[in-house]
């Protein structure tokens, strides 16, 4: 029986890695400073002690090469987990991720599968400025052949990472830097969470909020605030962008007739547009109001933390979008 154990997101990830490495000797990890130091975010803490340096491989600062080596290793029998320290740096390796990993299975007519996980972290809120605060998930979601998973809680972090490691194909597994220290219940017993199923984290009747990753926290805050004025929001954690579980969203919209999509990625051309487009196309007659999107402003992330907060979506922006969708506030975009 579970003892309502509470651990951090970081610890949950660490457990997932350990468990999968114990049960499958083909799982290896490559990345920078992940060995003795345990990773700059400490997610790989203690792993080198248990699994040794042949499975926990500290690499030179060469994201393209070790991502590519991960691909080659995945094609030949290993299950590599590639830690790309910040998602912003993934841009130096993205040819390997999108032109290689994502296309190998297709280009080879399924001769070679590429079972591997690119673990990275994104998001703002720490004053890390323009090159260390981005939410680039949409870029990865747009290119077919790689799944995109973004956990919002310790429970999800563990269950989704375990599933990602067991998946047949490549996965971008994007953590959020502001969540590493967040705490939540994680059972002692083994479990996994299927990739591709959204999670209704709060039920409600008046409006649907679809979000992911740290957006869940913001959305729940907004939902709480809205409750005070008698508005009951349903909050859905998409959990993954590819596959994208719009069925769950549409089911909810059939009930609420209103949708707000929330993400930390830049709003313009962000993934919220995909959700909005699908829902308006498939549930046109269910919608009593336009679908509103809450996302980051169309600017790089400013360093100054007050400006940064202004640039990133906040709970109050969600509240305002919801109110617009209920015609309680004037709305445009």
């Amino acid at each position, binding site marked *: 029986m579970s003892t309502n154990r509470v651990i951090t997101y970081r610890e949950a990830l660490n457990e997932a890695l350990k468990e999968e490495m114990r049960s499958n000797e083909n799982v*290896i990890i490559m990345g920078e400073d992940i060995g003795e130091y345990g990773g700059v975010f400490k997610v790989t803490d203690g792993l080198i002690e248990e699994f040794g340096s*042949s*499975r926990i*491989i500290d*690499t*030179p600062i*060469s994201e*393209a*090469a*070790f*991502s*590519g*080596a*991960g*691909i*080659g*290793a*995945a*094609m*030949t*029998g*290993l299950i*590599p987990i590639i830690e790309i320290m910040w998602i912003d740096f993934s841009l130096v390796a993205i*040819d*390997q991720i999108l*032109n*290689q990993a994502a296309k*190998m*299975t*297709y*280009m*080879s*007519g*399924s*001769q*070679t599968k590429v079972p591997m996980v690119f673990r990275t972290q994104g998001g703002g809120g720490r004053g890390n400025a323009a090159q260390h605060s981005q939410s680039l998930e949409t870029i990865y979601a747009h290119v*077919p*052949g790689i*799944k995109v998973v973004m956990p919002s809680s310790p429970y999800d972090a563990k269950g989704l990472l375990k599933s990602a490691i067991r998946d*047949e*194909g490549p996965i971008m597994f994007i953590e959020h830097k502001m969540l590493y220290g967040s705490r939540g219940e994680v059972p002692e017993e083994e479990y996994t969470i299927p990739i591709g199923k959204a999670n209704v984290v709060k039920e409600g009747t008046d409006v649907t909020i679809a979000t992911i990753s740290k957006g869940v926290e913001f959305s729940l805050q907004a939902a709480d605030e809205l409750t005070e004025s008698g508005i009951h929001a349903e909050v859905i954690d998409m959990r993954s962008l590819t596959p994208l579980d719009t069925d769950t969203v549409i089911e909810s919209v059939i009930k609420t007739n209103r949708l707000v999509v929330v993400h930390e990625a830049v709003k313009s051309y962000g993934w919220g547009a995909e959700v909005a487009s699908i829902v308006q196309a498939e549930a046109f007659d269910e919608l009593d109001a336009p679908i509103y999107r809450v996302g980051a402003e169309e600017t790089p992330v400013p360093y100054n933390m007050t400006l940064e907060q202004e640039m990133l979506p906040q709970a109050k922006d969600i509240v305002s979008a919801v109110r617009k969708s209920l015609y309680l506030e004037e709305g445009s975009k």
Partner: protein
Amino acid sequence: MSKEVEFYTFIEDKWDWDDVTVERIWYKLNQIRAFEETSVHYYQEGAMGGSLHTSIGQEAIAVGVCRHLNNDDYMTMTYRGRGQALAKGADPYKIYAEMFGKADGYCKGKGGPMHIASKELGILGANGIVGAGIPIAVGGALTAKTKGTDQVAVTFFGDGATNQGVFHESLNLAAVLTLPVIFVIENNMYSEMTRIEDSVMIEHLAERGASYGMPAIVVDGNDVRAVSEVAKEAIERARNGEGPTLIEAKTYRLHGHMFGDEQSYRSKEEIEAKWEEEPIKRFKENCLDKGIVTEERLKEIKEEVYSEIEASAKKAIEAEEPALGEVFTDVY
């Protein structure tokens, strides 16, 4: 201090191939040549999409290296890599079928000429992005090392690819991890329409091995015997856990970069002179000089090869198209 580049010199007197070996090598060299020539023909006929990049003139490298590889050794190569696929044992019919976009192709017609792969032959795939296959081979080598097998990985790429960042990163990574991988530069003197000498400030690309503390060797890429010797040693070192090697095989791209290349950047004379040094002619002379086989026997083999290749191509042309539904499979 930095390791020096080794310049390999083939010692004629030590050449000890018997007639069986010589015939096999002759067969392979001609198989690639015939395959490539026939490809051009079918490309002109409109049987293929995209671009066609032949390796005519470079056959000795593929053959010299791949003869030391086992089926379970790994290999990556480029859009110019069908010769290497054949050298590693690929079926010409299945390559053609792929090039003609047929269901029988190695990749069900979905990869095409730039992306030949064969899992059962350890061919991890040809690549359309310059340099991108290099780290993938490093990954194959990592699997071999992690699993403790004696497999090796070989990656073939061009002179121009040595200017890509991922070349640098991959060689360093392989060196640091002491991986069993052989990096083969096919220096055919051109990257597309640009002379390699206009793109680097060094004489030999193998000099770059020193940056990674990696043994590096320059070999005459038009002498299949020399390539074979050099590759053998590098592959043995790799199998013995002694790490990677960089081989620069100097050769010449006798055709344009791709079919249709106007070749305005080089003279007819230059090309003609290079035809004199091409590897099949060279090997034939070597064999006849040494009297290992007769000219008739070589001719016979060659004819056999050409007719086999023609038959493969014909069969591939007539093979089935993939079902339309294939668009949607094999994605994740």
